[in-house]
């Protein structure tokens, strides 16, 4: 199996699909001539030309709305948000049009649209350039929201996203563009709504998605040294959500910790905790714990930023608390 970076995996999925299907185009700010702020679209303009790799002006609402119009009428656009932080300017289009138009047209239109770009923090971009928007977009019926962490999933879920007949919010782990991994060749599709058991274990279930999955794997390794067997679940997609894998795991381990970079209030972890207590209440031996970002806008200074996001020590401590090994 070839080894690729996370960035290359996304690019290869887009290029393959553009080759296969003329209706697939990409658009966004500086994605063509410049090569993409994070070089995800690098080289595509040479291969597919400016009518299929469209450099747009800095007008997120306008070009996202235009892409929705294209998607409604026979095309399959992939929109790059230079970073998801700028998507608030397009939120009206995404929420009021893309997510709902199928419903309020009584099923007369479909919106096969992908919006992709880096999400989350960790690289000192401070308040306005640091958000984890899975909970925000996950709130709205009519959207699909996914967050791959491995290069293989990045490719497989991008292929699934482009072929999906619904608007997909594709949240990339911006800090991981350069990480490498094995990526299956060819038509490798990872369907939505199926969580991945990243490590098997029996004593406690650790749940996350995106960048935090890698932290959970480190924590599980550390806990193994203490005689604790942790199962790590990568949610992969936030909407649709794989309740079954989570509940089955908790029925086995009887304990769960949910980790996320985003703020805790009204967040993905809150929803996961609620699902577990609804469906596996009698199997639980401890409350489901959440480890989340600090309730502050993201700070700049490195030490403050590190303190604002979950770290491995906090996660390990939460796991021990759920096992009543620590107060």
């Amino acid at each position, binding site marked *: 199996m070839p080894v690729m970076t996370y960035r290359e995996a996304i690019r290869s999925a887009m290029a393959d699909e553009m080759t296969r299907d003329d209706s697939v185009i990409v658009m966004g700010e500086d994605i063509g001539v410049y090569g993409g702020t994070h070089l995800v679209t690098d080289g595509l303009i040479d291969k597919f030309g400016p009518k299929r790799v469209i450099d747009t002006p800095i007008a997120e*609402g306008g070009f996202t*709305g235009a892409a929705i119009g294209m998607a409604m009428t026979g095309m399959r656009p992939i929109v790059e948000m230079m970073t998801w932080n700028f998507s608030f300017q397009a939120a009206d289009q995404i929420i009021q049009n893309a997510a709902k138009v199928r*419903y309020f047209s*009584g099923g007369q239109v479909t919106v096969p649209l992908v919006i992709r770009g880096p999400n989350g923090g960790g690289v000192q971009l401070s308040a306005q350039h640091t958000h984890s928007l899975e909970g925000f977009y996950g709130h709205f019926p009519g959207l699909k929201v996914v967050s791959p962490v491995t290069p293989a999933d990045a490719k497989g879920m991008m292929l699934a996203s482009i072929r999906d007949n619904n608007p997909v919010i594709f949240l990339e782990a911006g800090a991981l563009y350069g990480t490498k991994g094995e990526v299956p060749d060819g038509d490798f599709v990872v369907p939505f709504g199926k969580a991945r058991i990243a490590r098997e274990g029996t004593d406690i279930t650790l749940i996350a998605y995106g960048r935090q999955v890698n932290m959970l794997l480190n924590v599980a390794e550390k806990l193994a040294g203490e005689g604790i067997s942790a199962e790590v679940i990568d949610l992969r997609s936030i909407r649709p959500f794989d309740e079954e894998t989570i509940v089955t795991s908790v029925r086995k381990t009887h304990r769960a910790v949910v980790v996320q970079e985003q703020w805790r209030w009204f967040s993905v972890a809150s929803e996961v905790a609620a699902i577990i207590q609804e469906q596996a209440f009698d199997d639980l031996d401890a409350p489901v714990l959440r480890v989340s970002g600090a309730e502050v806008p993201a700070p700049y200074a490195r030490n403050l930023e590190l303190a604002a996001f979950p770290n491995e020590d906090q996660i390990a401590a939460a796991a021990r608390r759920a096992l009543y090994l620590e107060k």
Partner: protein
Amino acid sequence: MATTRSRSAKAASKSGANDSAVGGRHKAASQNGLPLDHTTLLDMYRQMVTIRLFEEAAQKAFRTGKIGGYLHLYIGQEALAMGFLHSYQPGDKIITAYRDHAHALILGTHPRAVMAELYGKGTGMVKGKGGSMHLFDVKNGLWGGYGIVGGHIPLGVGFAYAQAYQQSGNMTQLYFGDGSIHNGAFHEAANLAGLWGRDGMNPCLFILENNKYGMGTSVERATAMTDLSAKFDSYGIEHEDVDANDLIAVLECAQRVTKMVRETGKPYGIEAQTYRLSPHGAADFLERYRSKDEVQSHRAHDPINVLEARLLQADATTEAEMEKIRADAKDVADDAVKFAEESPDPDLAELTTDVLAD
């Protein structure tokens, strides 16, 4: 790129229509100075009267609580959509805001299906899921029906890009209000349209329905630059004004500019001058923002009266024939109401369908 502002068209529209409505001095290519044959024009008259009576019936149903939500009427603006939609060709895409009943009826949705939608019935054109503001009839070219002021404008520009990309030879008619032109969505979308149009990639006709008010805020109270169509200049989009209460003027303009948009793949702007005779919505009872006299003065230029005068002047019809048309239109409206009232509510199973596609 040079943008030619069509001053002559603007000047004509500012003075011409009302004169010609009474005087019938309009000179055009075909019989009796009218641009189309009598049968076609009389049919448009029939449609405009039907829309009027349909909406009056809807307003009544709203006031008696049978129609819920919002209800925005097109009364006084009928010639605008009638004239431009006459240039509709299969495959074209029509998109507008929430004041959308006329567009649906002209494009050929059965009045029963429109009224049933207003009533929130399962037989409505979107199965009772959208109501008055979200009329869709994709088969007949109507791609909505949107409730967020300005929010649909970028979609129309996207439709046009797709039409050019697919080399369909089709175009988009994008309707929007004078109130929405101040929203960022217009400016972002118009900029894209102008930009893409440079390469022939945006056959989009921007039709600004200037009915002089955005709810209770007049054009003058919404912008210091009240020549609204001049805003197209900022984006390299050529444009002209038309007196949209005069069907004949609209038809002439529409035939010419749609041909041009189709051929060039470039967007074009229209400032369609009209006046909203009805309240903003059927629940706008007070109308504090304008005087009764002002509304009254515009009734003289009611597009239906203007057309009647034109047709009589050209000997295209008689009072008796028009009376018959009005009576038939009343029957259509009554039939639509009866159908809507007798229709079943949407099946409860519809609540959760159409959220996602397969």
